[in-house]
């Protein structure tokens, strides 16, 4: 277990965590402001990945494809909000869970009809392939490094928008008292649609960034969705800061667990028992973490005293 390997896995964990944050941010934003539990958030992740892959193929330009994919996901998100979800804000969480569960079924089939059931592989332009040199002769893929940079930039941008701009002020005001800002003459419906679209675009961005690392396939958003839920439960629902810290934490734990737990277990257990236990245990780690957090602090680590 060399230090270069540990460092590389740390970067991988950071990359995964940043990607998870983009998912969790949209989810927690929508929950904090509209009080909506949106299971279909994973579908938006999938839609983003498919749209970007298709647009890249169509235009032949990766960046253009990503931009079109983002715009497309934004539009799809806003359309879903206007047609289906708007009426759900006043309902209880159970109704929201079921209705958005229905949306997942719908989106999965829609994608199957448009693109078929076989997975797509998205290719990278030459300038994103290859490796950059790190210290001591170790290297790291350019693409993953780019994901980390873009993710951190988006996180910073999100922080800036929410805390420093008029739109962010309205978002925060909408979260604390929706009647009041409606009474002050703000178009709350439009604001909600915008916020939902923003969350959708973030999920779509996460999907298209993860696409070259994994494959683009139906149901790809579902596992990520569960992880995003775990993250916002750990971080405290409605808190963007909590979502960020929890996402990085979960990304690191999951990646490091999968990378090093088998070796660690082999030192304690027999090699046969270790190779049986390690995969199960490393995929359980995050849920164990969540259980511990909930036992110690049922409201999450950073409960939303409003971002």
């Amino acid at each position, binding site marked *: 277990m060399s230090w270069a390997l540990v460092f590389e896995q740390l970067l991988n964990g950071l990359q995964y965590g940043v990607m998870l944050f983009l998912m969790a941010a949209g989810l927690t934003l929508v*929950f904090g402001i509209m009080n909506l*539990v949106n299971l279909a958030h994973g579908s938006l992740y999938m839609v983003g990945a498919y749209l970007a892959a298709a647009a890249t193929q169509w235009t032949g330009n990766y960046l253009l494809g990503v931009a079109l994919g983002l715009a497309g996901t934004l539009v799809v998100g806003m359309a879903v909000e206007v047609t*289906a979800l708007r*009426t*759900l804000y006043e*309902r209880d*969480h*159970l*109704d929201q*869970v*079921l*209705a958005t*569960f*229905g*949306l*997942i*079924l*719908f*989106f*999965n*089939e*829609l994608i*199957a*009809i448009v693109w078929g059931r076989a997975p797509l592989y998205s290719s990278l332009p030459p300038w994103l392939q290859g490796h950059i040199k790190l210290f001591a002769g170790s290297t790291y893929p350019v693409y993953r490094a780019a994901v980390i940079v873009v993710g951190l930039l988006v996180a910073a941008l999100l922080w800036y928008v929410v805390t420093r701009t008029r739109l962010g002020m309205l978002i925060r005001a909408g979260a604390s008292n929706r009647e009041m800002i409606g009474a002050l003459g703000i178009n709350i419906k439009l604001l909600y649609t915008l916020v939902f679209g923003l969350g959708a675009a973030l999920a779509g961005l996460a999907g298209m960034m993860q696409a070259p690392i994994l494959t683009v396939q139906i149901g790809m958003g*579902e596992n990520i969705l*569960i992880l995003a*839920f*775990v993250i916002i*439960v750990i971080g405290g*629902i409605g808190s963007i800061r909590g979502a960020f810290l929890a996402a990085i934490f979960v990304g690191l734990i999951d990646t490091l667990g999968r990378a090093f737990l088998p070796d660690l277990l082999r030192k304690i257990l027999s090699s046969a028992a270790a*190779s*049986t*236990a390690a*995969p*199960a*245990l490393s*995929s*359980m780690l995050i*849920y*164990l973490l*969540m*259980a511990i957090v*909930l*036992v110690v602090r*049922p*409201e999450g680590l950073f409960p939303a005293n409003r971002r």
Partner: protein
Amino acid sequence: MIASLNARNSIAALVVAGLLLLPLYTSISGNVFVLTLFTRIVIFALAAASLNLIMGYGGMMSFGHAAYLGIGGYAVGILSSEGIGSGFIQWPVALLASALFALVIGALSLRTRGVYFIMITLAFAQMAYYVASGLAPYGGDDGLTIYKRSDFGGLINLSNRVQFYYLCLGCLFGGIYLIWRIVNSRFGMVVQGLRSNEQRMQAIGFPAKRYRLVCFVIAGTMCGLAGALLANNTDFVSPAVMYWTRSGDLMVMVILGGMGSLFGPVLGTIVYLLLEEALSQVTEYWALIMGPLLLLIVLFGRGGIMGLLGRLSRG
């Protein structure tokens, strides 16, 4: 609860009679497929009924109920692959394992409220799913084939379709009877009281968490039984039975039928699975219709089928 002849009760009676007489129909018509379909429906109805106990009566919105289907199933499957074929051992182990799992995750999850509870139960079920996927000696992702159904000596032969159907039906009716007794007992009243006003119940002096936990464990155990039945029905158990969309299916069945009504989940399961079957005959893309249909039911169909029947009989 005095039974009166209104739309709800007559539909429930019709369904019970229909389910009881179904093997008669299949033996006359020779249509075996209907019997296998309904065996599946009856098993899922038991699972949905157990979910209804905590969701409808207890107000605990568990999104991880399918975990017990898997645990009950894996108990049967693992014991069977280890050469222990007797149902007298397999089934109690299945029930015990489900009860234990419910006890542990209930004790942790019930510390939380509302949407946190929905998500933590979901996450625990996913955890069970991943554990099952990692069980390499017992099939891992691919699942575990059960070569021989549970052996109950000369008492009942599970490989006989009709006998197995009646066993499942017996379990379903037994489960519903049990729920009926629980709901109308003092214990059940306390649990329902906790659903409507927790603070008041605590002020009277009831330990809220303990009552909820017991209710949670009863429901989990009952669903574990459904899991044991399901594994015997398909001769197979795989992590897929615990996947979170399964838990979603179970919730939909309960809501569709009518939460907090005794026979609602049974009706909901029948309608949901028959609809799924019918739509998949029409088109490969049945979920494209099912999804929006679900959305519409949630948006406009308050109280599910039972609620609708209730409104009908009131005029």
